[in-house]
């Protein structure tokens, strides 16, 4: 089943025509309504009328996360505040969060793209969707919610955690579709097993997952544990939230909804736009967003685009699942973490040397993070209980900063390798 056959199966010519019209309109709209874009375009200088072909998008400046942060909280809004009916923010892990404002029209688009995506996974109005994504400033929960409601499915807005209750409800309510992050899904599977239950007795039709990096092995494991196919969901708060791209039955890349989001792949060093099939940084332009239109937003996600008629019948471009970043952001149990946050936490403790190393592993399907910190003369005490106390204090400070429990190990001075130039702060032993 295809939710919106007209746009999901457009011919190349139809798509290009539609995209150009929308691109011209959004550039004009952003120029006229967002002072930031007026300034940026005037600096170049370029006028909205200069966008004559799709290729002309390359004349536009990029928008970065820093630009959005500088506009905190509402300076990127293209409409009066009273027209914004909902806001979401990024996690704000590296400073001020970035704010995304939604008009009623934006929520309608969000519902539409998620409805298309969930339909790809086979969801229909008979389904009961247990949505374990968090409801809050994070976009994960609401995005799935809106899409499922648009389809007419029944949503259980249970959010993350309360695992025992999750299991009870999935049995009692007869959940047919689960939405989770891969690592929470695997944890849930373990708990289901621990309670002596068998997922094969439950009647799952599909799994939707995203918000963290995963491997094909993890997908297979999840599919085996839940006895249902699992589909990848991609999105980011700045652009909309989940719903930028989703996987179809081919399970081979995510279709991007090109009538709303215009994707480009650039070389992150030279900023040149790359051809389809070449790997680089994904850049997205919102073609229809009213609240916070973004031109050429740099996602920092590394992927490639391919364009073929898919076996599912859709002609929408496909992006490969994200396997890397152009910055040093890590996804740990679904949470975005930057090494700079760890550094910030360490600097708040007297006597801690700014030499540290982060080691990320996935010993039992769940991410674990160890932070190795060099002890110093100031920090060292002759007493075990004080040293243990210091270690716990560092763990607490890091927890406050990133919201995750980590293991801190105190190591001897000068044992963390120093390197010329950029230090190797992160050793990621997970196979992504």
């Amino acid at each position: 089943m295809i939710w919106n056959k007209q746009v999901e199966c457009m011919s190349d010519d139809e798509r290009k025509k539609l995209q150009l019209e929308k691109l011209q309109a959004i550039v004009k709209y952003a120029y006229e309504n967002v002072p930031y874009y007026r300034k940026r375009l005037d600096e170049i200088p370029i006028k909205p009328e200069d966008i004559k072909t799709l290729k002309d998008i390359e004349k536009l400046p990029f928008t970065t996360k820093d630009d959005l942060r500088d506009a905190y909280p509402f300076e990127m809004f293209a409409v009066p505040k009273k027209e914004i009916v909902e806001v979401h923010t990024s996690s704000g892990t590296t400073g001020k969060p970035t704010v995304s404002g939604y008009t009623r029209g934006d929520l309608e688009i969000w519902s539409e793209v998620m409805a298309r995506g969930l339909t790809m996974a086979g969801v229909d109005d008979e389904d009961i969707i247990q949505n374990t994504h968090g409801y809050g400033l994070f976009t994960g929960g609401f995005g799935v919610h809106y899409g499922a409601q648009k389809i007419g499915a029944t949503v259980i807005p249970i959010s993350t955690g309360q695992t025992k209750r999750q299991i009870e409800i999935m049995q009692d309510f007869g959940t047919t579709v689960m939405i989770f992050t891969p690592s929470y899904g695997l944890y849930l599977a373990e708990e289901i097993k621990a309670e002596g239950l068998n997922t094969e007795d439950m009647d799952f039709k599909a799994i939707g997952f995203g918000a963290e990096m995963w491997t094909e092995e993890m997908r297979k494991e999840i599919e085996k544990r839940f006895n249902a196919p699992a589909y990848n969901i991609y999105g980011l708060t700045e652009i909309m939230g989940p719903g930028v791209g989703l996987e179809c039955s081919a399970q081979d890349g995510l279709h991007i909804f090109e009538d709303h989001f215009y994707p480009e792949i650039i070389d992150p060093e030279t900023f040149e736009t790359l051809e389809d099939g070449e790997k680089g940084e994904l850049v997205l332009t919102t073609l229809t967003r009213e609240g916070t239109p973004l031109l050429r937003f740099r996602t920092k996600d590394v992927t490639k685009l391919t364009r073929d008629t898919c076996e599912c019948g859709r002609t929408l471009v496909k992006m490969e699942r994200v396997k890397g970043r152009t910055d040093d952001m890590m996804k740990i149990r679904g949470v975005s973490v930057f090494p700079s946050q760890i550094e910030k936490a360490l600097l708040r403790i007297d006597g801690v040397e700014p030499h540290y190393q982060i080691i990320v592993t996935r010993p039992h399907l769940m991410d674990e993070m160890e932070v190795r910190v060099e002890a110093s003369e100031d920090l060292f005490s002759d007493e075990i209980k004080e040293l243990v106390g210091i270690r716990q204090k560092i763990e607490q400070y890091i927890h406050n900063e990133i919201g995750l429990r980590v293991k801190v190990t105190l190591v001897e001075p000068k044992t963390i390798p120093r390197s010329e130039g950029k230090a190797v702060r992160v050793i990621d032993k997970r196979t992504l």
Partner: protein
Amino acid sequence: MKVKQLSIFLENRKGRMKNALDVLETGGINIRALSIADTSDFGILRLIVPEPDRAKKLLEENNFIVKLGEVIAVRMPDHPGGLGEILGILDGQNINLDYLYAFVEQKNEMAIVLLHPENIDSGIKALLDGGAEIITSNEIYGL
């Protein structure tokens, strides 16, 4: 009355303790007493050595973290109940110990216990009042 003690931070990693001891060996420093406190990922090596200041410098030159502290050395008869008597004195005065370690001194058939009370001065006073025999650094270094 107080004996200087070196405390060295050690990662719980193969070869680390030997590395520290090798530094002392190279410096010609002989260890009089030693104890180690350990947790799952780090430990503290505590040492009594002659020339503690020089030993600290040597270790620090080799990237070890070293603290110089003080403990009380008490001589006690080497027979069952010997340590109990000493602890009894501290207990009677409500003095808490952070840690202690002991070794046997063969020449005089005596044993020596090194004590680290929460408050070292009240520890000394209590021990002296209780009739314990506190010995000096030089006596230990000479053993």
